[in-house]
């Protein structure tokens, strides 16, 4: 069955099972490998994408339910000023260790700042609580979000 998707501002047509999770449509049908598989049960956040501005776990999102909505993935997240600020802070602070969770972290952080430009510490921890980092880069994730939000002076030091 054909599903029409709006991915990163482009119209994409996929011929697939409507129940196939968006994660696997991105990775297998659209050859966009930035979005990662970690748990398949909306428990780790590695597969996070934005759908109409909301951080969503693509591993449990049947592709049919994403039809016609604006999907933004890690490959395109830096195209908005907020996403760009997040990505730059992530690089400057060298947030990643193994890096596997980081696509999901960056998308979640971007969704947070798009809605809440100056989050409190609690808002940061709560918005990011669905994203596991097995390497435990959490201190830098907090710092990078604050830096991207312009909340911490000299945070890049």
């Amino acid at each position: 069955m054909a599903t029409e998707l709006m991915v990163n501002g482009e119209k994409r047509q996929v011929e697939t099972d409507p129940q196939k999770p968006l994660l696997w449509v991105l990775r297998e049908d659209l050859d966009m490998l930035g979005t990662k598989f970690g748990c398949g049960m909306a428990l780790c956040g590695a597969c996070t994408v934005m759908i109409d501005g909301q951080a969503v776990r693509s591993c449990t999102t049947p592709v049919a339910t994403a039809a016609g909505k604006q999907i933004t993935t890690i490959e395109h997240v830096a195209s908005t000023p907020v996403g760009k600020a997040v990505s730059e802070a992530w690089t400057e602070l060298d947030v990643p260790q193994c890096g596997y969770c980081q696509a999901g972290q960056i998308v979640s952080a971007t969704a947070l700042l798009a809605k809440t430009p100056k989050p409190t510490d609690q808002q940061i921890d709560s918005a990011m609580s669905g994203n596991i980092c097995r390497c435990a880069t959490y201190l830098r994730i907090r710092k990078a979000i604050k830096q991207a939000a312009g909340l911490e002076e000299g945070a890049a030091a």
Partner: protein
Amino acid sequence: MNAPLNMNRRALLKATLVGGAVLAFDARFAFAQAPGEKAIIINAYIRVNPDNSFVIGSKNPEVGQGVITMLPMLIAEELDVDWTQVTAETTIADEKVYGFQVAGGSFTTPMNYMPMRQIGAAARQMFIKAAAARWGVPEDTLTTSGGRVSQTSGSTTAKRSVTYAELAAEAAKIAAPDLKTVPLKDPATFKIIGQSKIGVDTPAIVAGKPLFGIDVKKPGMLHAAIEACPAYGGTLTSFDADAVKALPGIIAVVPLNSGYNPKGPHDAVAIVAESWWVANQARSALKPVWNTEAQKRFSSAAFKASAEAKMAAAPEGSVHKAGDAAKALASAAKTVTARYDYPYIAHATLEPQNCTAHFENGKIEFWAPTQLPADGRKVVSEALGIAPDAITIHMTRIGGGFGRRLMNDYMVQVAQIAKALPGRPIKLIWTRTDDLRHDFFRPGGWHDLKAGLDGEGKLVALADHFITYGKDSKPDTGAAMTATEFPAPMLSDVDLSVSYVESNVPTGYLRAPSSNALAFVFQSFLDEVALAAGTDLPELMRRTLGEARVMKHGNRPGMDGSVPEFNTGRARAVIDKVCQMAGWTGRSGGDAGNGVRKGRGFGFYYSHRGYFAEVVDVTVAKNGKVSVDKVWVAGDVGRQIINPINALHQAQGSVIDGLGQILSGQKIEIRDGAANRTNFHDYPLPRIGDAPADVVVEWVVSDNDTTGLGEPALPPVIPAIANAIFAATGKRIRSLPVVPAELAV
């Protein structure tokens, strides 16, 4: 610009590396990716591009420990190029060219700090020789900087300089100097080593580029999902291949034997399809029937009962015996006894196990997220009955290792699938449940401890009956304790004994293996001993360590065969340092009102040649939930922190990893010979809200060899948290993980 070298005419340069490993320092193409059309290969680690930029090889797998940045830093420093001129690549896995290639044991730094510098320095000499020959001047009139050779003195007054790129074709033909005698820089002149460099892959990770094993894509590739026998060692009786093959998109159903479980055969069935999602969905139609009769008797409850029975009986073996512990304990002024235990736990790398392989004409090529490719080559060679030389292994970036990917079971699996479907690359991906159920777990264990103090509050005797997993007097993989477990070597009356509980569960190495469990046991127990001695743990440690001296660290040799030493002075220095950093003033903690309790704890551990002392502050809520507020870390890994930003990140990550082991509820239980956890809801990892506000790290720089940082910061935080919980609540944590309900008020 020079013409590219003809690959068949390039010079063959050989040299021997320190540490006994013979390395063919061989100017052949060995990098993971094809060189740019005009790049010139100087040696197996260095390629020069016409624009005078350099591709430098990193020979070890990258699991997030930062070697793909650190190893090229070492080479670039001595090559004398600017870091901005460098791009880094992981080399191919080839032990004949690169020697021992591993991400494990915190070995990369101690085994490569000098050799990689020597390789950079040797290449620099080759450029100098090439310039000297071109200009007809003595080498000692030439200097280097920023990837150029310059003449600044000598017979000609004219200053001249030439880029390495312009010299590359000539340099590549010059015999490499002896690595052992090649001059190295004075560390005071380092421009790259000791400077913080962000990970070379960081921009690509942030951009979502496909770097990981799971991202591998090859023309014509098929995808495989796997259904493995839940009970370790079980065999396949039957399955419904027809039902699976009847489903759309299914290419093949391949029964296989992992051939890897060290405890015997372990059967599985692979489903191959055009899409991994389709293959994985089809598992529900497979209806495998397993024969697991022989495994039914293995369960956590049975292990516990057996351990308790063994504890009550005479030990089966001895780990270390000195003097007469029984007599010394009987005559001690005070004795302390306690029992400790910890469970099987999983690695839970965030990137699930996966591997891609392509079998054709009796040869196989891998794109493997493996921490130990040489073992992968060996086990695949055995499983397929093909020569090691018929196996090519490309190392991908790895989404977390923690020791899980030292075991190459997934390589054996995908090799068998690829052999069944020759000519098509196959990518095998496990689900999270597969990953949690088919790990090589950190083995659990039990300890029955007794310590004796003299009248001055000094520890004088120690006995431990250690119950671990094993059979026929042999511990399972990663389940051993050594004779040098602290504080045994410090005492003249010691009895470390051992008994074994049989299990079918495969075990392996988890970040800081054995240390992650034994630090908890011994540093927590020593806190109990300190209390009985009327003091705190840092002070008891100082008393026990005694004066500064170097002791053999016994039978825990490194993979390079050398035996690490234990320097009591270095231990004291990090203990003193962390106490000063945290403002430690002795035991402190207690009621903070409204059922909230606060406490401070300390832990020290020496592992992987690194000395670490840590202090933590915890808050225990009314409902028993423990949060770690702040952690102070003092570490000594020798005279040079190579990449300070990454060193900090490794230490911080290790601390939060250890925090997860004690506080997140990590525990694998065994029923009917199978592990019972399925995903992150029943096998939780620390989340952002569990991270402390800060983990402050300071280095005690000592004049000792530079050693690794992937592991040694982890062990001490576990007892430090346990001891802080005791300080806060008066409840001793003697069993992992912490159960919050038991701390509720």
